[in-house]
C-alpha cells in the first residue's frame, strides 16, 4: 500500500423508522456536518467524495446527482457506490483506496437510507432472477430463518440462543444515542414473547427498517498526523463475492465470510483473533447470523458462539465486545449500515464511544458489511500508538 489511510472524523444522524421532518438531502447534511465537526475541518478541505445508498429503494435515478449539492461536492470528484447490503462497507473501502492511491489527501464517504419513501421489500425481491426464482423469494426473513434452523440443527444451540443475542444488543443500543431500537428488554423470557416470522426466527431476531445517514472522513497519514483528532489507522480491507445463488435451499454457504476474514487475518499476522482484535462491529441483520458468523470469521470454533453468548463474553464490558453499538439488529439504514460499522469501530479505537465504550483496551477493530446471499466486505483498523 502506497499511502496509509486514517479515519480522522465520523458523523451519524440519529435513526428512526421515519424521518418525515427532512428530505434525503437534508438527512445527508446532518451526517456530513457531524463528520466535519468531529474532524474539525472546513468543508472546502475535502478533495473527493464517495456517496451511496440502495438502488431502487427511494425510486430516484442518479441519486449521486441529487446528493452532490447536499454533501458539499459541487465541482469536485464524486463517485456513487451501490453494492446492495455491502454499500456502506464498499463506501469505506473506496474512500480508503482514493487515499491509498496517493491521488487525494482528504476524502469523505457518505451513506444513507430513507426506507419509508419507497418499498424495501419490493426492492429486495428484485435481487432474484425474474425468469428463474423471483416468484419464490421470501426475502431476508426466509434466508435468516434458514440460518437459524441450520444453526440449531448443527450446533445444538437452544431455541433461546437468538433471544440472548437480542438481549445483549438491546442493552448496547440503550447506551448508544444514535441507535434506532432502544428497547427496554430485561430478560430472555421477555424477548421470547415476540411472535414468530418463520419459525424458529422471531420478530425480535430481525433488524428494523431504519432511516439515517453516516459520514466518515479519511486522510493520508501525513495529513492525519496534523489534524486534531487521534487518527484511527486503516490497516487493511478486502471484499469477497461468492458464486451467484441460482438455487436456494439446502445448507447456505458462509464461504464469503470465511474467506474475507481469513485473508485479512493472514495478511496482518492475526493468529488469535479474539486476543489480537479488541472490538468487532459486524454486519449481521439477524441475531442467529451473529452467532453463525462469529464462527465463520474464525473468532471461535464452530458451535461455540452460543455458549460464549450465554457466558456474556460478547458484552461491551466483556472480554470480546461484539457490536457494542447495538448492531444491525437494532439499527439498519441499509446504505449507511456498513459505514456505521466502520465509524463505530473508529470511535471505539479512539476511546470516544461514550456510554457504550468498551472496557477492554482498544487495540484493533474488525468491521464488516454483508449483502445479498454472499458478498462480504471487511476492514481491519487499529488505534493510534499501538
Amino acid at each position, binding site marked *: 500500500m502506497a499511502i496509509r489511510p486514517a479515519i480522522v472524523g465520523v458523523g451519524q444522524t440519529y435513526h428512526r423508522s421515519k424521518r418525515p421532518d427532512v428530505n434525503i438531502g437534508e438527512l445527508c447534511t446532518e451526517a456530513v456536518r457531524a463528520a466535519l465537526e468531529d474532524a474539525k475541518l472546513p468543508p472546502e478541505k475535502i478533495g473527493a467524495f464517495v456517496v451511496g445508498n440502495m438502488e431502487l429503494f427511494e425510486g430516484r435515478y442518479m441519486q449521486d446527482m441529487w446528493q452532490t449539492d447536499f454533501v458539499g461536492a459541487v465541482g469536485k470528484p464524486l463517485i456513487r457506490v451501490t453494492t446492495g447490503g455491502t454499500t456502506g462497507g464498499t463506501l469505506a473501502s473506496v474512500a480508503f483506496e482514493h487515499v491509498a492511491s496517493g491521488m487525494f489527501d482528504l476524502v469523505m464517504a457518505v451513506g444513507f437510507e430513507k426506507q419509508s419513501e419507497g418499498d424495501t421489500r419490493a426492492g429486495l425481491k428484485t435481487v432474484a432472477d425474474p*425468469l428463474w426464482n423471483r416468484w*419464490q423469494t421470501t426475502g431476508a426473513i426466509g434466508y435468516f430463518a434458514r440460518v437459524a434452523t441450520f444453526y440449531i440443527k448443527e450446533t445444538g444451540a437452544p431455541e433461546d440462543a437468538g433471544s440472548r443475542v437480542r438481549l445483549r444488543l438491546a442493552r448496547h443500543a440503550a447506551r448508544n444515542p444514535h441507535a434506532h431500537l432502544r428497547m427496554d428488554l430485561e430478560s430472555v423470557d421477555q424477548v421470547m414473547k415476540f411472535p414468530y416470522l418463520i419459525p424458529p426466527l422471531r420478530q425480535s431476531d430481525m433488524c428494523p427498517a431504519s432511516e439515517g445517514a453516516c459520514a466518515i472522513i479519511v486522510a493520508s497519514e501525513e495529513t492525519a498526523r496534523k489534524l486534531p483528532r487521534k487518527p484511527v489507522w486503516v490497516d487493511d480491507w478486502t471484499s469477497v463475492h461468492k458464486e451467484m445463488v441460482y438455487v436456494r*435451499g*439446502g445448507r447456505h454457504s458462509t464461504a464469503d465470510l470465511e474467506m474475507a476474514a481469513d485473508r485479512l487475518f493472514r495478511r496482518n499476522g492475526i493468529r488469535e483473533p479474539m486476543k489480537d482484535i479488541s472490538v468487532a462491529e459486524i454486519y449481521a441483520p439477524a441475531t442467529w447470523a451473529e452467532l453463525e458468523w462469529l464462527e465463520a470469521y474464525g473468532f471461535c470454533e464452530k458451535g461455540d458462539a452460543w455458549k460464549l453468548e450465554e457466558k456474556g463474553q460478547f458484552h461491551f464490558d466483556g472480554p470480546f465486545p461484539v457490536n457494542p453499538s447495538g448492531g444491525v439488529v437494532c439499527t439498519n439504514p441499509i446504505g449507511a449500515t456498513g459505514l456505521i460499522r466502520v465509524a463505530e469501530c473508529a470511535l471505539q479505537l479512539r476511546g470516544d464511544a461514550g456510554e457504550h465504550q468498551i472496557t477492554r483496551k482498544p487495540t484493533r477493530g474488525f468491521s464488516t458489511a454483508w449483502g445479498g446471499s454472499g458478498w462480504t466486505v471487511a476492514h481491519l483498523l487499529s488505534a493510534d500508538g499501538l
Partner: protein
Amino acid sequence: MEEREERLSQERIMEIRYRWSAGPYLGRFLAELRDKGKFYVVRCPGCERFLLPPRIVCSTCYTRIPEYPDGWIALSGRGILLDWQRVIYPQMDPETGEVRDEPFLHGTFRLDHDLLFVHYLGPADLDEGRLQEGMKVEMVMKPQEQREGKVTDIHYFRIVED
C-alpha cells in the same frame, strides 16, 4: 391551541412494465418444461458438474456450455425432501406486488445428481405433521393449457408414498 408544523409529503404509485429475455439456455429449459414437462440440467464439459438452470458459462471454471441438446440431461422429476419452511407472515408476492396472507410451504428437494431445488410442497391440504426429512417426492406439472413457460408451470412437488 398548540400549532403543529405540517410535515408535507406526497405519494405516487408507479406501474412499470418490464420484459426480460430468457436467452437460449434458460429459454430452452423453460420451453421444454412447458411443452414436454421435461426438467433439463446441463453438464459442464470443463469440470463435469451439473448446472441448474442451464447457462452459457460455468461460473467456477469459465468453460463455455454447449447449447441444447449437447450435454443436456432430463432429470427424472423425482427426489428426496430435505427440509421445508412454512411462511406464515404476510408476504408480498414478488410477481404482483400484492400481499398474500395465506401461509404456504416451500420445500427443498434433492433431485438426481444431488442437485437441490426449491419449490412449493403440495397439495394445499397437505398434512404438515406427517412430513419427514428423506421422504420421496415427485414433480407435479400444471395442466398443459395453464402452462406459461415459467418455473411455476411446475404446480408443486408431492410426497410419494412407499
